[in-house]
């Protein structure tokens, strides 16, 4: 049984402009020890997908479909039951370690809290375990540093603390929502290495949400590319990045500045803007920006179809059916 199984996830909001479709028909399967990258620009629905898994969507959200964690349906679960899973079996690392730690509580207290909550550990036992975990994420003199406050840590160190916090109860699934976006490039690589190393040693299922294709290339075996709330392309990272099928993925890859070759006049950019999620087009959501657009693109929405080599799927009319 896969650790995480999302089927046809829909997230909608009622707004004054009409229904905002934030996520549509997203399906994801993830096994233990696997890393999945979820790539997309702002507003592509990647964070909404993550929030839906964590049960953090606001009261205004209408959620459809199914999110199963180890076979157990998470959608519609009572807060109490959800709280027993969150933090214990599912860990989360947020984007900004600056704000995801409480400035008024010592790091030790914030870590201990999780163990006391889920394991009923004593404070002393929780501190010992927290120190071990801080050590595991590469913070030295862990026992002393437990007594310090978040502002006494650097950004990278703070992100290590939040990773330690997410992993304290040995979860089976770790969701990292842009974990390196707020960090320096050098620190970024360290944090990614750390995540990858922990994934291997703890047999974690890891979801890495990012807008950075470099991050995906570095640690993810598989990746899905999201656009306007839908998965437009999915597959093994290697082939997906080498031979992108969807024009949007191709555009994303072409937009990356390169150090090789002559310096271009201007950086490549995908023309146009992502569509307004309250007024998505009938056909393919990417069609208005697509250079390869054909008549069918505006008429019907392409389905996510498995491609010839089976490991990948893409939603585009230009591709032959498998």
């Amino acid at each position, binding site marked *: 049984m896969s650790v995480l199984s999302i089927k046809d996830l829909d997230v909608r909001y009622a707004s004054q402009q009409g229904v905002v479709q934030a996520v549509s028909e997203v399906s994801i399967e993830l096994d233990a020890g696997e890393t999945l990258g979820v790539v997309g620009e702002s507003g592509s629905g990647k964070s909404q997908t993550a929030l839906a898994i964590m049960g953090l969507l606001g009261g205004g959200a209408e959620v459809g479909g199914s999110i199963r964690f180890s076979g157990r349906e998470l959608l519609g679960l009572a*807060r109490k039951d959800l709280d027993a*899973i*969150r*933090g214990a079996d599912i860990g989360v690392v947020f984007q900004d370690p600056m*704000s995801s730690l409480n400035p008024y*509580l010592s790091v030790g207290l914030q870590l201990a809290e999780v163990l006391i*909550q889920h394991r009923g550990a004593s404070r002393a036992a929780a501190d010992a375990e927290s120190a071990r975990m801080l050590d595991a994420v590469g913070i030295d003199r862990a026992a002393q540093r437990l*007594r*310090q*406050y978040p502002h006494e840590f650097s950004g990278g160190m703070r992100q290590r603390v939040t990773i330690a916090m997410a992993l304290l109860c040995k979860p089976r699934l770790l969701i990292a929502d842009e974990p390196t976006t707020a960090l320096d490039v050098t620190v970024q690589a360290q944090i990614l290495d750390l995540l990858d190393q922990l994934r291997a040693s703890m047999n974690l299922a890891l979801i890495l949400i990012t807008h950075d294709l470099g991050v995906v290339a570095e640690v993810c075996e598989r990746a899905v590319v999201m656009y306007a709330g839908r998965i437009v392309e999915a597959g093994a990272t290697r082939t997906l990045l080498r031979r992108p099928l969807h024009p949007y993925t191709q555009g994303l890859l072409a937009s990356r500045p390169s150090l090789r070759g002559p310096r271009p006049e201007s950086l490549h950019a995908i023309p146009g803007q992502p569509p307004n999620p309250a007024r998505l087009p009938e056909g393919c959501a990417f069609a208005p920006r697509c250079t390869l657009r054909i008549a069918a693109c505006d008429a019907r929405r392409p389905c996510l179809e498995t491609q010839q080599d089976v490991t990948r799927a893409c939603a585009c009319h230009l591709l032959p059916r498998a």
Partner: protein
Amino acid sequence: MNAPTVRKTPAPLRMNPAVIVPAAVLAVIILLSIIGPWLSPYPFDAIDFDSDWGTGPGLAHGHVFGTDELGRDLFARTLYGGRLSLAVGAVSTLVSLVIGVSWGAVAGYFGGRLDSLMMRLVDVLYALPFMFFVILLMVLFGRHLLLIFVAIGSVSWLDMARIVRGQTLSLRQREFVDAAVVSGLGPIAIIRRHIVPNLLGVVIVYVTLTIPQVILVESFLSFLGLGVQEPATSWGALVNDGARGMESTPWGLIFPATFLALTLLCFNLLGDALRDALDPQRGLRK
């Protein structure tokens, strides 16, 4: 970050003169108010017929602060009055801390219908004319000192609830609250462990503002004859009496007013120092 020089755990109330001095002064005033009336050679409510009415302060005749216009010992009365004023301050602080903070934090954190319901109740209590409310209490329950506490207690948490709610609304959006939610903490634990500590700064500042306010409200009620009744007294009532005879017997105003002002000043200084001491980032902001 450089090689970690592990800093000492911030001891919130380390021997800091900004805390020690006002705390010591307050302690002396509180202690004097409690035991003082027994120390004084004269009772607070007896007229000393041996001395002139309205004697000035002096050591020779034993009336250290002088006597009031009725010839009662002002030293005993000032200390005795402190009991009521301090008690009113303590009650209002307690009420606004316990009820006001939890009310506001719960309303702000849960939001939605519960928030509307709780805050409308606050609005209703706000809208009640305070004097009318006090008079109503007097009519219903008769004149009793306890009613002052009920009246002041019932209104002193309203401002606190509103302020705390506003702060909580913005705190709830912070990522560390989301982080606490996804680590499986229930709403009550989040409010207690994550919201309330972040409110401390505002709460302490507001409490130090509330105490002087209610001490003045009490004196106002007493002035109208709805509060403490003669021969019992409070600082507010003494200041009122003293102000009337300010030109002929200035000591009647000076002594109680000094005690009142000193107490308020100490509360404010203590509040300030306390807020700084409880802020883990204080070293960075200087």
